[in-house]
Structures are given as C-alpha cells and as structure tokens.
C-alpha cells in the first residue's frame, strides 16, 4: 500500500499482486526507488540514534529498527544521525 499519497499513482493487478504505478509517464517515486527508506541490518548497531531524532515517531528499535512507512516523511534526519551509515534515504 502506498502511504505517500502524492495523488499521481494508480494501481494495477499484475500476477495477482497489487502494483502501484505512475500515471501516464509520471513514474511512481516510491515503487521506482526514487524515494525510499532502507536500513542495512548488517551495519546497524541497534543504538537507537535514528529513533531519537525522528520527528514523526516513524521508527522504533526492537531486535531491528522498525520503520513505519505511514508516518515517515523521508526527511532524511535519521540517515544523518546514524553513527554508522546503516540508513539510506533516497529522494528524487
């Protein structure tokens, strides 16, 4: 499910999966990887630094860092704070 809700996307069903696409020639930023939040669990030291700076409470530290796409605005603050380059926030 898309939580960005840019209003530019529509959904199609492909091989039984709900796929999100851009309208006409506008690509969907999330699906096409232009906008994304990723954590590398091999690098992450479970320090919680990213959680402490997230303005929208989108992160939580359990065994791994848990990311709530619904709340994340892809502001990139967590990526800056992380002491070990474990987070990558991709923006267009």
């Amino acid at each position, binding site marked *: 499910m898309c939580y960005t809700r840019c209003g530019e996307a529509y959904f199609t069903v492909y091989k039984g999966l709900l796929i999100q696409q851009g309208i006409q020639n506008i690509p969907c930023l999330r699906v096409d990887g232009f906008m994304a939040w990723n954590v590398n669990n091999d690098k992450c*030291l*479970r*320090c*919680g*630094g*990213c*959680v*402490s*700076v*997230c*303005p*929208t*409470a*989108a*992160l*939580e*530290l*359990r065994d791994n860092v848990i990311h709530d796409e619904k709340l994340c605005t892809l502001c990139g*603050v967590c990526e*800056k*704070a*992380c*002491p*070990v*380059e474990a987070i990558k926030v991709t923006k267009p």
Partner: protein
Amino acid sequence: MRRVRKSLPSRGDKGDETMNDVIVIGAGPAGTACAKKLAEEGFSVKVYDKRAEIGAPKRCGEGLSEASQAFVGKIPDRCIAQKIKGARLYAPDGRYLDAILSSGGFVLERKVFDKWLAEEAVKAGAAVQANTFISDLVKDERGYFAGVKGEFLGNEFEEKARVVVCATGAESPLRNKALGVFSKLNSIDSCIQYEMTNVDVVPDLIHIYLSGVLAPRGYVWVFPKGEHRANVGLGIIPQDKKPGAYMDEFLKLHPEISKGSILEVNAGCVPVGGMAKDMVANGFVLCGEGANHVNPIHGGGIKEAVLSGQMAADVIAECLKKNDISKTALSKFNDVWWKERGNHLKRVEKLRETLEKLSDADLNDLVDALKPEDIIEFARGAKLSVLAKVLMRKPRLVSIARHLL
C-alpha cells in the same frame, strides 16, 4: 496465535488488586531511581525494560563523578572498573592540563551498575522485569494515560497503572507519541565507542581530546577501565562523514591506543541540549535522557537521569497521595526540574554553543590561559564570566564571549 495475558496482580495494597500505582518504562538510571523512591514511599511500582539483560549492551563512556554518590547512593566496588582523580584535557596541539576533582570519580561497569540500581529498586519494594518490550501507551475513558501494552516472550499483555513514567532514554518513539518530544539533529552528538584492551594510557585520569578537526563540535574520550582496558570513543555533530572515519584518524595519531584490540563496539546519539520544556501529561511523566536531561557540554547523563527520576518520583508521590494525577498537578515536576537542573543545564548548553564556534587555534590558547580549577567549574556551568573574560582578550571572539554573559 498470541495469547493475551491478564496483567500480573500488583503487590500494592491500595484499591484494585490488578492496578499498579506506577508503571515505569525503562530500567536505566532514571527509571530505577524513580521506581526506588516511589517504592520507598509505599507505592506499588513495576519497571519494564526491553533489554534481555539490564544494562547491556552499554551505550556509555561510563564516567561518573564520585560526588554523584550523594544521590545515587554508595556505589559498591563491583560496579567500579577504575577510580580516577580527574580529567586530562588535551588542546588540539597536544598540550594538556590536568583538572583534578577534589573528590575524584569513577569509570563504571555499566552492565553491573545498572543491575545494581535495579536491585536497589527491588529491595525498596518495586518489581523489575527485563526482556519486556513496551509497544504502546494506553489511555482511559478520561483521556488520561493509564497503562501500557507490552510483550514478554511472545505474549502480549496490557497492564494498568495510575501513572505511567517514560524513562526509555532517547531511543523510544513513546516520548514523541505522548508529548511530541524528540531530539533535534543539531542537539545530538553522534557517537562511536570501542571498548579496548592492551591500551597504554595514564590509568587514573580520564582523557579528553578537544579538536574541531578530530571531532567537530564534540570530543574524543579515553576512559581507562583498569588493567590496560579503556573506553575509547568520540562524538561529533551529525554529518555525512561518520564517527567511525574520525575514529580511524584519531587512532592513527595514537599508536599507544591503536595497538590495542577492540572487545566491544558501541554507538549512540547522546542529546546535548534541547531539554524538554514540558515533561508531563495527564497520568504521564517523562524523565531522564528521554527528556534530553543530559549535561550538554560532556554528554554525561547518568547523574542527570538519576536526579530527574528522583524529582519525578517526589512529584508523583505527592500527586498520588492527593489523588490528583492531572497534567496540572504533575506539572510541578516541570517547575522543580527547571528550577533545580534546567536553568543550570541551559547555561551549560550556552557554553557548548560558544565553544563550538572556536577554532583549533582558539582552543589551544584557551587551554593555555585557563586554570584547571576553572575547567571543572565550567563543566558545572559556573564561572562562565571567567571564560568570557579570557575570550574577550581576542577582539574576534568578543561577540562569541558575549553569548556567555
């Protein structure tokens, strides 16, 4: 399928059997200090911590002044890795001065220390449970915070309390969900630390290296832990170049340290400012590092966490006795904390903001011009006018110095 377990019966004698007076989230120094005081007052208190082992992994340089025992209590020897006399402060050019503390200090073993604090809380009558993740807060029909949702060994549970204390440190979104508190990016230091062995440093001093090149805005620390062990760490203003890269550069310059081996790697973001203005809601109190109650100049948070937890406990006890746990009643904690600690830490934050504007050359001159006693006073946020006077000798620094006055 997950079973939803009924809450454990409380050991308290007041009212409803399954109702705790207080649930504390987090068994760090703030949480256990708060729980201990409340239990001593006769309230039923339960402390939950998500860590499988309380205190581990550590996220701390483990330095604490001996004077802190006045409120932490007499720290048993098993919690102390190394006794220290004071701090050796290195200017960027390598010159140093020794600031000797009148009563000395400790490098602790946090894994043992935090457990001891938890034991003290249990002795006073509180219940502590590790490995229990608190996932959410629960409100009652009045809209007051009135309990928590948690998980222990795969079993989810919900448990009620008259007051919920959030002592989770900065690492939990609960403080943000309840009060909108989080750390601003420019108010944290991004840190990495290696616990090393086979390191050669003067063992009874903590070593602090100031340098805008080695650790922009922050500093490098080497805290000896006895028998050639030491916590070697650094904190910097968050940026694209990560603390690990700075650490490599520091180690290259210090063969007496880099010859050692790394036993443990810790990371963390320590708040160095931005203390929360409002720490209470109806039935809810935030204390400790979660409220950014940390000394902004050196990032020391153990003492502030304990003080903050204890002050919170005093106010909560008073409110529970009066049976008024509204935000208005609990907001006495805001008043007390800001009066006793906040205004003081605010001055320290100003000092930090001043120092971060100085170049390495300025820092060299400063270390030259200052007396060791002054340094100790500065770290406490006192005698800042002395520092301002030293800075004012350079016309370029006059405006920076004014910020202090």
